[in-house]
């Protein structure tokens, strides 16, 4: 069954396969999804990313592909779930709190590339 959304473990495998498609010895690094336990990714965009990874490796001198997934908004509000768990595994109380997190913006990851092709969605 093909779905509109790709499971996270499948995305991870697809990224690796795309990077190694032209040359199996290519090193492929995927970062940014480590804290996600369960996620669905838009398949239309997964497909784009697979093609774009292959496109990056078309240069025969590319030895490594780094794929980094970052929030497009580098500063976002998060919910912190503080949950107390009893000895018997049940939970009597949770406190919810907000946290503002600012992370390094995408420029930190590509600033030393000679050419940058921005194909992201724009909301003008």
């Amino acid at each position, binding site marked *: 069954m093909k779905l509109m959304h790709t499971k996270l473990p499948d995305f991870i495998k697809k990224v690796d396969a795309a990077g190694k498609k032209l040359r199996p010895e290519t090193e492929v690094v995927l970062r940014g999804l480590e804290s996600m336990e369960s996620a669905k990714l838009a398949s239309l965009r997964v497909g784009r990313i697979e093609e774009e990874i292959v496109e990056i490796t078309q240069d025969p001198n590319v030895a490594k592909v780094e794929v980094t997934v970052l929030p497009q*908004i*580098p500063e976002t509000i998060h919910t912190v779930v503080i949950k107390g768990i009893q000895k018997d595994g049940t939970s009597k109380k949770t406190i919810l709190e907000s946290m503002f997190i600012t*992370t*390094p913006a995408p*420029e930190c990851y590509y600033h030393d590339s000679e050419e940058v092709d921005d194909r*992201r969605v724009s*909301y003008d």
Partner: protein
Amino acid sequence: MAKLKYKIIPQGAAEGRVPINLIFIDKKDVVEAGLTYRQACEVMAKNFKEPAAIDIIDTDAVTVSSDGIMVDYAVVAFASIDYGMINRDFGYLGISEQAYSEKLLSEEPHMKQWDAIDAYRGKRLFRGPNFNDRLPRVAHNETQTITGRIANNNTGSEFMNVIDMTEILVPAYGALEIMHDGEVLVGLAGPEISVGIGMVVFETYGRIFNRSYGAGLTAHNSGLYAKTVKSDYPAIAGRKKTLAEYTMRALEIGLVPGRDLGCSPAVLSVAKAIGAPIAYDKIEERAWLELGTVGITEDWLKAPSKQLTHAEVLEKADEIVPGISDGKLFKVSQICDVRYAQI
């Protein structure tokens, strides 16, 4: 060759106290160069490859400090630049002008300053961006620009490097002095400023908040910890007599801390010094708790003391106005260079 004039307090300035490159551009210089505010920031990114925060300031406009005191300058646009770039969606933010209206004045009693103080009447007001100008940020985001390593937050007053973790605050009178080549007190913000910046006023599209909290309330609500939030954090503040002058203008037209103005340690201390009324019963318990941690109690404020004149307060401002630890006074010209970027 067309050039854009800018001022920079470089990383390392003020005997190593300033950790981030801070760029200030006068609106007049942007106009003279034939640029929009956004274009001016793009020109800076092309010319200046190091990480930096940018504030574009209109010295003919007015804005409001976090505790509700009007100041005659305004940040009209701000940005973050790094690696010669500005983040496409979040690297720049233009501030919306706010129109004068009876409604604004009735909802925001501190804004009587705009009406009653001759120096401010008729000037254009800029505080924070409105809903549309904030996009694609929503209510769930801070009023912040970020590019690469540099975040420029709270409408161009709080600057951070998210990799080396350095930070610096430039409160209202600090920016004013920088634009007028005055003098600045550079040191650690200290506990009184930590408490003070939480004592905000109610504003629509304020520099930090939109229609939240109000005079007499604390936005920090951190009890005993309010005095620690920015206490170890460098700041470039204006001279204490500058703060005292602007605060007294608001008090002298009958505005009352706790009722109309924020109940910050600075505003309360100046009010006590000139014998101006304070709305003790409008200051919430949580705010008193925070004020108490820096020695500002109802008893202290009510204790008899010599009532000073406007001129006497200015003369004794360094003793009266709390805030800034380990501060050193610098002429702005000692820490700030004037440079030119190629357009």
